[in-house]
């Protein structure tokens, strides 16, 4: 079984018989050689500026310190006290957010994978209908559900606890994790699953031993999506937790006062809050592995 694992970084290994002038980057050279490659590089650089510009605005405001004037100009002097002010306010709740987002992401992605596998590979009557129903309900604005949710959680003595909000995020994250994984599994050939069934594997064994190893790209996308949404969630974090268990987003929102507005500290705080998510992206980004299933049917 040959598995040609390629990362985006390296592309296919160079083959000596390949012609020198090709239309696309097939060899791992760092310097663009064809006109298209140059166009590509220039386009990427231009887009880099476009995407980085608003981030520059945020960083420059943060560097202007507390009491920064609103606006796009460069800071006249660098004032880092906004960062220390923000850190002092936020640090207590960053750990809460970690305790909420990490388990909720892992569990919802895992359960989503299980559901996705069942929906994609093992049809039972009504599977599609259930999938549809699972998805459609997610589009209700959550403002409408917070009261019954609060009452329900209070009855279970989960209101205000970290477990409570983790469970809420798992429940409301499950449908989309299922969607991502199901649509990913649909593209895996049935033959693989058939082969496992023929070999005598039950559902769970097939899932764990055959499907899970192939799921990395799906998990990457689902992980990015879930972690970002859970980490940046505000509404549930506001209602379902108590003060001790507030996620950092509620604290960040509190930096925006009603009769005093401190943009410098707000931006500094926002950058700090975004950092863990960026780290997650960097870690997951290494796993954009493709072609694992190429040839595995053989």
């Amino acid at each position, binding site marked *: 079984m040959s598995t040609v694992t390629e990362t985006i970084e390296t592309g296919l290994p160079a083959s000596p018989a390949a012609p020198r002038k090709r239309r696309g980057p097939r060899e791992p050279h760092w310097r663009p050689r064809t006109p298209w490659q140059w166009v590509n590089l220039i386009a990427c650089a231009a887009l880099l500026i476009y995407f980085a510009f608003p981030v520059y605005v945020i960083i420059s405001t943060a560097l202007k310190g507390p*009491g920064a*004037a*609103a606006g796009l100009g460069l800071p006249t002097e660098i004032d880092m006290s906004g960062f220390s002010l923000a850190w002092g306010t936020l640090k207590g709740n960053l750990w809460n957010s970690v*305790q909420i987002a*990490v*388990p909720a992401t*892992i*569990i919802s992605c*895992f359960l989503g994978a299980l559901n996705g596998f069942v929906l994609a590979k093992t049809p039972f009557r009504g599977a599609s209908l259930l999938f549809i129903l699972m998805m459609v309900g997610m589009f209700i604005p959550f*403002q409408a559900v*917070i*009261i019954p949710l*609060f*009452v329900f959680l*209070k009855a279970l*003595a989960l*209101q*205000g*606890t*970290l*477990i409570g909000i*983790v469970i809420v995020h798992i429940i409301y994250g499950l449908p989309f994790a299922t969607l991502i994984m199901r649509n990913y599994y649909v593209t895996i050939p049935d033959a693989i699953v058939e082969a496992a069934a023929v070999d005598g594997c039950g559902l769970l064994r097939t899932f*764990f*031993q*055959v499907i*899970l*190893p192939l799921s990395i790209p799906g998990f990457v996308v689902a992980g990015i999506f879930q972690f970002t949404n859970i980490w940046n969630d505000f509404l549930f974090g*506001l*209602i379902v*937790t*108590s*003060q*001790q*268990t507030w996620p950092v987003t*509620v604290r960040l*929102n*509190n*930096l*925006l*006062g*009603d*009769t*005093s*507005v*401190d943009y410098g500290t707000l931006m500094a705080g926002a950058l700090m809050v975004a950092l863990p998510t960026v780290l997650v992206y960097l870690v997951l980004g290494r796993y954009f592995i493709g072609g694992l299933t190429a040839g595995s049917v053989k």
Partner: protein
Amino acid sequence: MVEGFKRAALALTAASVLALSACGGAGSSGSPGAEGSATGEAGGGTLEVFSWWTSGSEAAALKVLEDAFTAAAPGVTYKNAAVSGGGGSNARTVLSTRLQGGDPPDSWQLHPDQDLFAVVEDGSAADITDLYQANGWEAKLPDTVKNMLQKDGKYYAVPVNAHRANVLWTNPDALKKAGVSLSETTSITDFVAALPKIKDAGVAPVCLGAKDPFAPAQLLEVIIMANVGADGYNQLVTGQLPFDDPKVRTAVGQFKKVLENVNNDSAVLTWDQAALNTADGKCASNLMGDWAYGELTNKGKKDGTDFSHVTFPGTGEIFDFVGDAFVIPAENAPNPEAEKVWLAQLLDPKVQSEFNLKKGSAPVIKDASLDGYPDYQQKAAEAFQTKTIVSSLAHAQSAPAEFATTYSDAVTSFLGSKNVDAFLKTMTEAQKNQLG
């Protein structure tokens, strides 16, 4: 490779479960009031205070109250559960949810008048008349304010401050350049007539931070006040004076003229940016409550040189009151003894003095010392005791929440359509349908 994945998956799941159980233990003690119960004279437990004062001068002012309470009840832990956003909307959302769920905080912030009456009517706020009698507060508060705190002779809330909403912040240089002078006795018609002159001098006559819906709503209510007076205004917000009264129509027409002379980026400007722009000379005037004073001085602007202030033309004798008050729950109160001690601190003269100095507002009681107060705040405190007090509509004080929102929405519509008839029609209908 496959075995490795299986092990990894199991390990992840195990880790998550462990993390969850660890968190669960730590977090579950977080539910408010779970730790202590009322033990005699506020001897122990916690006091959870709910407000929307989270940063800057508001937070500093709240700390004054916290310190006063902790000094008076050292055995009780004070919990600051403030949540900001939307002029209190976020806090209100949490509060409603908790009240629905039978889990109120020990005390929460609200506006007096109709905002208070809403929670009185459904029985959420506790009757504290005995506290008023024990402390003799009735004698210390202005009559109009007292009426905003009681229903059927019983008191339900303790006020802490008085902000004035009908202050016009001006840029002296811009006004001088245009040859316009505004004083406490300028009439509204003179003001509106002066706007084109200021525009010709090359500066925007009025700065308006219309991204915040309360800013234009406040501007209109003050213009209406200038036309119908305090009595007319009070009748308007109770539905006795219909909105399509000719004087109100004139007021809306003046509002339209003012909008023609407003900075062109008002739709994306927040109220604080509008105030700062005035002090920076980008425009000549800005109507805003006196919380703008703190905002300006905190950003280094000097009263008298960078900016000045005058009561909004036509409303010199009116104090457009925006205040905050605290209530305690009637049922399921987590710590009733501590709550009473908390309320008792709020109207202590020294606490009032210090709190309002930090907050930038006027003390509600006469005998709070004004030592160390900046010039503007001294004048405001005096005005509170001497002028006619009316309750702001833009801040959902003088009318029920739904009517105030309808008003705010109608103003937003008007900003787009400039259709006076449509505005008056919407408001008259709302008066009929919503104001009993």
